[in-house]
């Protein structure tokens, strides 16, 4: 992991002190709420439906045991709302109704506190910290080099990458040094703190795109040219939201040392021409779509000015690259067990290997590693009774222990809202499985249906049109049978509570989107979306399959879609083809028909279609 220098540390502390000053001025009435708003937002403090929400940056997903422990402490000591507040919130949310589950108890909203939440942008959120305590939390975070800088606001946001960066066998080059260099460059960039809209960058360094770069304002793909030199393919103007767009390639090859100069050009052109009259049209994707080649020409002209006139101050030096890259060397891990340890290990291994759940866990949750001695292990935060990506204080603490004991003190927050341990010795797998299972973090469902993505939705977010979490919980409840889950196979199910698409519904093989009609919760279902991974194929938004469904209908619709898949699928190389392959082969129609037959009231749906 990147080790903070004295400069980096004092910078984060200065930021915490600055935030304290701003909060105190706000509480003292010297800084109005309107002016405090963008300042707190630029430190990750939102005000949500019932309480403030803090979003903490986990740059490119890398997090240490020490940092996880501080998050555990924040969960326990600070994520503590006034009991009256949470009781009122609970009553309001419960009035929205239940989601039925075939053969099970209906799901209702149950609000809890004392936990953190992993997001699709590899940040961590807390939902119940009183704003008056926010400056104390920022000090605490600064003590482990964490902060909320630019996790909100119309700024350059947290940079995301491949969760298997630096360990993947198919890697062209490690993206993390570039992520870190961009993190530093973008932090409190004076020119780019009030852009037309937020700005998100994703970097992929492997052959497989595991960073969904087509979906970002800027997507960067590391590659080597014919001469063997390292550089980036640059995509601009991807994004979800109301208008899903896949990024346009604006540069087939940008030499690596020009990265910051080129980004400066892209963002300056955006700062000048991006629309500021309509928040729905303010993202760079709209500008790129409207201007096409003219946009690229202007970026190239601006880049030329930066290099030829300004003196290209931000050309990355070999020395700086070397300094940063030196932080990302693989830890040396040895496992030699002798005597009692060896005997104990033999017992644990025999126990594990006698359990079919262990085998399934090895298949689903354990990933290959560049080092044949090592494995990457995903801890599943997708289980009954807790929202996707939620981790209580105790679970965060336990995850810190696991990372420390089994993974050189490092974990990765994944965009699928789990934690990945990147440095696990293969001889430790039985011990890790046993320990993770005790904690409820060894559910062998990674990549399967219940490893679904969901935003916090209408239970928390003031932007949401509908709740995401009861839908996620109902589907999770319905698909608890491990054999059935395994039979359905790999599939991306993504749920967003509104068109802002934090739950990435556009890129789900099945996408569920909360929409609001007459103050009631409705859900639009899309099929065939893709994030760009090998399983999903080239990034593309899913297609809507008709009028929206009621919350009560959604679990039945998912059943119908999956039944259709199981009826239609064929064998491919001796294995059943997966959902997305069947969908692409047979087309959307049989799925649409099946979903429609799951409606309670077909006539009313037809009327909504007309309306």
């Amino acid at each position, binding site marked *: 992991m990147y080790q903070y220098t004295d400069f980096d540390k*004092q910078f984060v502390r200065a930021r915490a002190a600055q935030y304290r000053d701003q909060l105190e001025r706000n509480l003292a009435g010297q800084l109005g709420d309107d002016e405090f708003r963008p300042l707190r937002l630029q430190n990750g403090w939102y005000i949500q439906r019932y309480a403030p929400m803090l979003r903490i940056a986990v740059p490119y997903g890398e997090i240490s045991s020490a940092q996880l422990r501080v998050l555990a402490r924040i969960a326990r000591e600070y994520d503590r709302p006034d009991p009256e507040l949470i009781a009122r919130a609970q009553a309001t949310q419960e009035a929205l109704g239940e989601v039925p589950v075939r053969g099970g108890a209906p799901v209702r909203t149950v609000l809890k506190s004392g936990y953190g939440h992993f997001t699709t942008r590899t940040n961590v959120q807390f939902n119940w910290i009183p704003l008056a305590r926010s400056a104390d939390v920022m000090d605490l975070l600064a003590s482990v080099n964490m902060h909320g800088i630019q996790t909100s606001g119309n700024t350059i946001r947290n940079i995301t990458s491949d969760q298997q960066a630096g360990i993947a066998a198919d890697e062209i080059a490690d993206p993390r040094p570039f992520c870190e260099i961009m993190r*530093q460059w973008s932090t409190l960039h*004076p*020119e780019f703190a009030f852009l037309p809209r937020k700005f998100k960058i994703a970097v992929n360094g492997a052959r497989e795109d595991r960073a969904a770069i087509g979906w970002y304002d800027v997507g960067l793909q590391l590659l080597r040219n014919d001469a063997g030199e390292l550089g980036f393919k640059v995509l601009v103007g991807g994004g979800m939201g109301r208008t899903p767009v896949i990024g346009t390639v604006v540069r087939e090859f940008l030499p690596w040392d020009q990265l910051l100069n080129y980004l400066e050009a892209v963002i300056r052109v955006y700062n*000048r021409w991006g629309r500021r009259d309509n928040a729905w049209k303010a993202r760079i994707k709209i500008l790129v779509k409207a201007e096409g080649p003219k946009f690229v020409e202007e970026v190239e002209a601006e880049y030329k*000015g930066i290099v030829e006139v300004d003196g290209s101050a931000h050309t990355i030096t070999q020395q700086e690259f070397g300094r940063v890259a030196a932080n990302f060397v693989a830890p040396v891990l040895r496992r030699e067990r002798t005597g009692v340890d060896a005997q104990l290990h033999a017992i644990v291994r025999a126990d594990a290997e006698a359990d079919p759940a262990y085998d399934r866990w090895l298949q689903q949750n354990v990933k290959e590693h560049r080092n044949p001695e090592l494995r990457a292990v995903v801890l599943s935060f997708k289980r009954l009774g807790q929202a996707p990506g939620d981790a209580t204080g105790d679970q965060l603490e336990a995850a810190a222990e696991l990372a420390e004991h089994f993974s050189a003190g490092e974990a990765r927050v994944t965009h699928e809202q789990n934690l990945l341990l990147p440095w696990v010795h293969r001889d430790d797998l039985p011990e890790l499985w046993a320990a993770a299972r005790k904690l409820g973090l060894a559910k062998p469902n990674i990549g399967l249906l219940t490893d679904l993505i969901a935003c916090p939705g209408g239970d928390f977010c003031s932007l949401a049109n509908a709740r995401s979490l009861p839908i996620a919980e109902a589907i999770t409840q319905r698909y608890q049978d491990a054999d059935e889950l395994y039979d359905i196979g790999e599939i991306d199910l993504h749920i967003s509570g509104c068109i802002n698409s934090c739950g990435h519904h556009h890129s789900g093989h099945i996408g569920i989107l909360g929409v609001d009609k007459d103050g009631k919760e409705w859900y639009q279902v899309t099929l065939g979306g893709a994030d760009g991974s090998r399983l999903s194929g080239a990034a593309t938004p899913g297609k809507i399959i008709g009028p929206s469904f009621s919350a009560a209908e959604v679990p039945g619709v998912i059943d119908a879609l999956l039944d259709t898949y199981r009826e239609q699928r064929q064998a491919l190389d001796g294995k059943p083809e997966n959902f997305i392959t069947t969908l692409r082969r047979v087309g959307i129609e049989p799925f649409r028909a099946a979903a429609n037959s799951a409606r309670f009231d077909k006539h009313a749906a037809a009327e909504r279609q007309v309306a």
Partner: protein
Amino acid sequence: MADFIQILKAADAQLASAQEDVAALQLANDADPLSEDLAGVQRIELHFPKFSDGRAFSQAWLLRRRLGFRGDIRATGDVLVDQLVQMQRSGFSSAVLRDDQDVEIAQRQLGRYASFYQGDAIGQVPHFRRAG
């Protein structure tokens, strides 16, 4: 590092410009600074219609860095104390605060950070190019 940005109250700025004879150019925040004729111009006034409209930061940057303009670049409009440091680093040399803003609080913001990661528009190179 250049001197700190000059902080002015609107009344003082008005009084001063009535007394001095400065060739000032007012630039709307959607204008392209690269296409302006700056011959003889001593001060360029850039405008923030809302503090959250950041176009003038890029204008100042281009004037200072690309064109090497050496006169005064002044921030006007919705100018708040919490944006002064980024104004200075983007090339502004003076700022006329919105009326309700407190000069003392403004001063307190200027020395908060010893230095920053990026190079800026007023001659500072990026942190990674500095010695030590």
